[in-house]
Each structure stands twice: as C-alpha cells, then as structure tokens.
C-alpha cells in the first residue's frame, strides 16, 4: 500500500492560557491519499475548522496550539514531515507550496486594497521566485484556469469590484497557483448562493481531476459532500464520532449523531418531503392578499450626470395567503424576496401595489395581526433590554397597558416556545442563537397575530437547531391557525415547511404553486436551474455543469415599465411565467 499524502493521528488542539481546559480538538485521526476528497462534517463548535487550520498550522496565529499528536505530510520530494512540530520556515514553504487553503468568506479573505492580480501573483513570488511580468503572466494563467472570463483585464480589479462567487474563484486560483498536493476548503460555499455554490463545487471537482490533488472539505451540510467526497468524517464536540467511505456513512450510519444529521436535519428531497397537511377551501377569505406590489429604489447619480434610473427590486408581485397556510418565497440574494417581506410590514415603501389584511389600520399602515421574525437572532433583540421589556414592546406599541395578564402571556409563550421560566429576568446575550430565535417568535406572538412573516428565520442557525425551530413553527401554526409567509433561500428548509412556493428571480415571481408540484416538477428555466443546484444526499458523485451566467442588472432607466407577463398553468394552482 502506498503511503498516504496526509496522515493525522491523535491530534489535540487547545486555545489560550489553559490549553487543556479549552481543548477544541480532542484526539482526531485520519488518513488522506492523493486524489482523494475527505469531507469533515460538523456543526459550529465541533472543532472542524480548527482541525483544518491545524493541518497547515494557521491555528497558531489564532491563539491555538497543537498539544499532542502528529500531522505527517509526504512532500513532493518524497520526504515526510511532521507539521505538528515543524518550524515556521518549513511551514512557510509548505503553505501555498504544498497545502493550499480557501476560506468561507471570499469577501473578507482577500486584501481590499490590493488588486487580485497582485494577490494571486504573490504565491508565485513566494514559492517560484517569479517577479514582474512573469508573475503577472502566471497570475493570468491561474485566473484562466478557474474559468474567469477576460482574465487579463480582471487582474487589475480590486476585490470590491467582483461578486462573491467570482472572488471565491480568485481564492481558488490563488490557492492552487503553485499546484499544491493538498487543498483545504473551509466551508467554501456557505456564504454563496446555491447556484453559485454549484458552480464552485463543479470547478473544484474539475480542478481536482486535472491535478490529482487531495482535498479536505469542511462543511456543515452533509448533503453538499454527497456529490463530491470519497470519505466522510463526522465531528461533534471536538471528536471524530464516525468516519468511513461516503456510502457507508450515508447509507449505514453507526453513530447516533450521524443518524441525527442524516434524518432530523432538513435535506432536499425534490418535493417528496413536502407537507400535505393543508388544503385550500373554496370561498375562503385570504389572510393576506398582495396585488401588483412594486418597490423601486432610486439610484443616486453622481453630481455630473443624471440618475441612471432606479433599481427595480420588486416588480409587480402578487399572491394570496390563506389562514393556516405557509407560502414560501424562495430566491437567491438580490432577488427581492426580503424586500417583498419588508414592504408588507411597512419597512420599505412600495411605489404601488395593494396588500390587505382583515385588520389593517389605515392610519398607521400597521396591523398587529401581521408580525415579523428576522434573520439574524443576534441583531433582532436589543442587547440592553431585559427579556420582559422586549416581550412587552409590541403591547406598549399597540397602546395597551402592561398588566399582570401581559406577564402571564409572556410566561405562557416562553414556555410554549421551549424556554425556561426565569428567562424574563435575563438579557439577550445569555441565550444561544436558537434560543434567541425562539424569543423572537414569542415576541411576534405577543399580540396574537394571524400572520407571521419569517424572513430567513432559520438561516443563521446550526442545522440541528434549524430542524427543531422548524418543528416548533409547524406546531405553532397548527395550534394558532397561523399563516406563514416564509422567505428563504434554502430549498431544503422550504420543503419542510411550505404548502405553497413562489420562486422569485430578479424581482419577479417566475413560478408559483403547490410545494410538492413546484419542487418535483419545476417548469420555469430558473426554477429548474435552482433546484438542480441544490445538493441532495441522493445524488452521489454528481457532475455539475459549469455555468457562468450572472443575475441580470435590476437597474432600469427612469420611466421603464416591464412588459405584462403571460402565465401558463400546470395543473392545480401551479403556474409559471412564459419565457421569451
């Protein structure tokens, strides 16, 4: 048997002063051969990222220390080195030269004041001794290699001129510049849209085939690696609870936590997991009816030129929502899905469109029957207010007195959303992300609303927390007959909670209908593209197509009105926009 490219055994990593007490990685071992992909799967705090950062000893710079174990890397010249004990000059040769790394946030992982060309060329300068024109030419080749069109011109761009997906390609180009034998990818697609994610995954798979490098892929999404990994290691609380070949882990999980990750956590199942617990009745009054909702933001021109027009963020969106029903609005960033939600709550002003709920107060344009839960649980609770004040706010805003009855309701709701009774006297920072989202839900329920608008309400949560909050939402919906407007980019989550789905693209609804029907039988080309980009456990070793299409600009000249849309029905209430 050939010796593996990388062999990690009994790795322990600690942080800060007391390295034992703050141990983050507790005895992890694995092997990786050339050309192989190992996926390390875990939730936040599992130690997966620290494990990755230990392999090229970047962990040193974050205050971490390898306290025990070895990381044997076989180098290009045939020798073997123990990275755990190697000295800094050796490590500098290995980093970039033999181990490349890409990170989660491409936006912050590139130096904002340097051109991307210079940053890619840096690898060549450091490891190949190239300078000037040679380094620039090498950087251009590297950009070509990650399929960035017009590479020569783009070398001079600075990071703020490129989209997240493009920047992640630049990161890949720079990490692979010197043909490292190992690439570490730390959640490289988490910050990206799902269609962009599919492209990055496809690119990584192709480059791996071309170069025969080994790859370690860190992710929280076990579905994502089903398409690309050879081996999987599942981590929980600093330990590798299970590892083995991909199929063994996915089909015959042994450890309870792996089973939990595979069953309890939402995975996309092409509509098979869609809810079937609601049917519309004839002649029922809609809880919310939206017609022709249009939101445009003026683009401020410079002083010397006229405004080039306005951003058509939301264009003529209409739908209705029945009591007890969940309508999911899905789309990628910039599609206008959040703007739609915010317009319904009166946070942005639509330029036209009607939306009516039975309880709308014409004077304030607010309706206590419509409440919203926001995406970021860390930003949606005022850190300086106690929980009882936070829960009292909607009551005070509605002009009602805060009485003993109000406090009773607070306690009841807290209990209902699964929080301890003494929560009222605490402050937000004493709660975890999932708990805070439960607090937000409790706050939204204080006035006994008919409709909850949930704007990416579970997106910031860990996957298993996500699952539990979704369950809570479904229970609450049944108990109180709530209607949900569920805005999300995550198809797996949407599948679990939606009765109906509206797909928005570039500010417009392109397809709407029954959840199972839309997800299993998408009609519009964008919906098809979106759904095929969603990773699933079912598709193993799948080949993604590289597609460099970009979302069209939403800036339109002043006075522009889009043409009327034609719709085609596909049975039931499933309709899609007719494409030109």
């Amino acid at each position, binding site marked *: 048997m050939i010796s593996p490219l990388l062999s990690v055994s009994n790795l322990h990593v600690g942080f800060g002063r007391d390295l034992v007490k703050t141990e*983050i990685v507790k005895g992890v071992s694995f092997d990786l051969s050339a050309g192989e992909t190992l996926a390390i799967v875990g939730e936040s705090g599992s130690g997966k990222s*620290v494990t990755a950062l230990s392999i090229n000893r970047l962990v040193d710079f974050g205050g971490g220390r390898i306290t025990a174990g070895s990381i044997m890397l076989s180098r290009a010249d045939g020798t073997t080195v123990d990275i755990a004990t190697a000295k800094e000059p050796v490590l500098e040769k290995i980093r970039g030269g033999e181990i490349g790394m890409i990170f989660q946030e491409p936006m912050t992982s590139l130096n904002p004041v340097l051109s991307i060309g210079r940053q890619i060329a840096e690898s060549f300068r450091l490891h190949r001794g190239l300078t000037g024109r040679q380094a620039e030419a090498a950087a251009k080749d590297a950009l070509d290699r990650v399929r960035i069109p017009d590479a020569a011109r783009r070398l001079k761009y600075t990071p703020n001129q490129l989209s997240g997906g493009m920047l992640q390609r630049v990161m890949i180009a720079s990490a692979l510049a010197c043909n490292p034998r190992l690439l570490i990818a730390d959640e490289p697609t988490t910050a990206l849209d799902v269609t962009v994610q599919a492209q990055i995954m496809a690119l990584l798979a192709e480059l791996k085939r071309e170069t025969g490098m080994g790859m370690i892929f860190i992710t929280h999404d076990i579905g994502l690696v089903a398409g690309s990994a050879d081996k999987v290691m599942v981590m929980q609380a600093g330990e590798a609870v299970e590892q083995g070949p991909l199929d063994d882990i996915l089909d015959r999980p042994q450890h309870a936590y792996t089973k939990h990750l595979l069953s309890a956590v939402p995975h996309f199942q092409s509509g098979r997991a869609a809810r079937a617990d609601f049917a519309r009745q004839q002649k029922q009054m809609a809880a919310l009816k939206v017609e022709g909702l249009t939101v445009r933001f003026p683009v401020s021109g410079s002083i010397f030129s006229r405004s080039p027009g306005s951003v058509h963020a939301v264009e003529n969106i209409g739908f209705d929502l029945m009591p007890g029903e969940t309508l999911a609005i899905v789309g990628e960033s910039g599609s206008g899905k959040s703007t739609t939600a915010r317009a319904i*709550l009166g946070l942005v002003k639509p330029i036209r469109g009607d939306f009516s709920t039975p309880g709308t107060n014409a004077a304030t344009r607010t309706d206590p029957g419509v409440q919203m839960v926001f995406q970021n649980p860390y930003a949606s609770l005022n850190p300086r207010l106690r929980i009882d004040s936070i829960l009292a*706010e909607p009551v*005070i805003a509605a002009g009602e007195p805060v009485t003993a009855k109000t406090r009773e309701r607070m306690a009841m709701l807290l209990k209902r959303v699964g929080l301890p009774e003494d929560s009222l006297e605490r402050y937000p920072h004493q709660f975890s992300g999932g708990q805070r989202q439960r607090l937000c839900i409790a706050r939204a329920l204080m006035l006994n609303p008919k409709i909850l608008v949930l704007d990416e309400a579970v997106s910031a949560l860990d996957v298993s927390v996500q699952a539990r909050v979704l369950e809570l939402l479904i229970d609450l919906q049944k108990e109180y007959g709530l209607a949900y407007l569920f805005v999300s980019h995550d198809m797996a989550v949407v599948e679990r909670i939606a009765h109906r789905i509206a797909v928005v693209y570039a500010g417009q609804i392109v397809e709407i209908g029954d959840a199972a029907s839309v997800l299993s039988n998408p009609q519009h080309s964008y919906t098809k593209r979106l759904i095929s980009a969603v990773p699933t456990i079912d598709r193993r070793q799948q080949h993604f197509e590289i597609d460099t299409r970009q979302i069209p600009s939403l800036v339109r000249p002043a006075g522009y009105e889009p043409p009327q849309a034609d719709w085609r029905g596909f049975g039931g209430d499933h309709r899609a926009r007719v494409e030109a």
Partner: protein
Amino acid sequence: MAFLRAIFSHPSGRIGGTIVLVYLVIALLGVFGVTPHNPLQQFRIDRLHGPSMKYLMGTDLFGRDVASRLMTAIGQSFLVAFASVAIASIFGTILGLTAAWFGRLWDGLVMRIMDVLLAFPAILLALLIIAIAGPGSFTSIAAIAIVYTPIFTRVVRGPALSIKGREFVDAARTFGSSRRYILTRHLLLNLVAPLTVQVTLALAWSLLTEAGLSFLGLGTQPPAASLGLMLADSRNMMETAPWLLIFPAVAIMISILGFNLLGDALRDIFDPKTRSRPA
C-alpha cells in the same frame, strides 16, 4: 457594581480609575476649601520656601502654600471640565441623535455646521469665544463646551446610524412603536457605551484646554488658583524655585493620564471585538 468590577479588573482601568478617584477627592476638598492652609493667605516670611513639612510643596513668590493652591486649582479645573463636558455631551447627543434619525435636510444642516466648527483648531475657537465674552471661568466652560459639541455630535451620529439599521429597530417599527420609544429605549440605551468612553476622553481634553487657556491668562483670573495660571507664574522662577513648575506640571499630567487610561479601559470593556473569543 459589575461595571466597577470590570473597570478595576482591567490593567489600565485599575490605574486610571484609582487616579481619577483620588483626584475627585482632592478636587472636592479643594472646592470646599478643606486645604492645609488658606490658599490665598500670604506667609510673607516664608516666600519661595522649598517643600518642607510645613509647606508640603513649598510656597510661591507671595508666600502662598503651593499644595493648598494646587488643591483648589484642581477643584477649579475639574469644575470647568465637568461642566463643559456635561454641556457638550448633552447638546452633542441631541444633535447627533436627531441628525441620524431624521436624516435628510436636518442631518445635512447639523453636520455642515459641525464641519464649520471643526474647521477651527480647538484652542483658536476657544480664544475667539473668549474674545467675545471676556475671560473668566464661565466663558471657559462655554468655550470648551462649544469646541467639543461637534465631536460628541459625530461620536453619537455614527453609531446611531448603524443602530438605526439594526434589525431590532426594524422590529420595533413593525410593532408600530412610537418614535420616542425607539429613540430612547433602542438608540440612546445602546449609545451609553460609546458616550461613556467619549465623556471620559473629553474630560481629559477639556482639562488640557482649560489649563492652556488659563496659562494664557484667559481662563480663571487671579488671585483664584488654576493649574495653567500656576504654571504661567512659574516660568520666570523655574531655576530658583523649580517646585513651582514641577508640582503643577505633574498634577496636570497625571490627571489627564488618569482619564485617558480610564477611557481606554472603558473602550476595551465595551468593545466586543477585544473580548477574548474562540477562533
């Protein structure tokens, strides 16, 4: 209490906090006239007496006790500093908060006026105001307050704008919370941290400015004692009576140092970034 404990467990907070507390005690004693000698009494036989058991910091040209004068001077300087910073922080907070909240024309107007005030070096603006109102303690207070109002306005407006965009303010709007409720409970409450830091640092600057003004003879008027005046008086005698220079100089340095250290510590304590975090 938890807050005091946080200050005193921070290394520079401990030093700065102690200095400030000691000075506050001295200033109070000075203001209420609890000094070893009468600061105005002239002991004619003991003129230019070096530091001794009777006169801890010596006496000046008129035979007045330097230690007693220093205590009243510190009291005087602290009065001016606290009064001016109180005024500047109140006006600055109101202006910055409303500029951030209402935006548009009001924001533009307020910030341009602040730009105009900031286009003058601090001491020059203070001089101009004193030229108008005549020298004296009250003018010093007004002058320093006007000089530092723009700084408070900026310090409040920036964070207020960012808090205004936070989701909890959006949430409050969806409930239909009143403007007053949002401005006080959501914005102002979250501005307490940056304001506390700024107040501490502004106290250091205003002590510095007050000393400068009275050094030029434009602040506190003799025979009342002030740090700047004492330093100005020491200039021609620094070789024969260095204690006249050294004690006020060190007193002023340490007082400003105390507030600066405390301000730094507060910034660290309030800043989530500097708290230890796992990688």
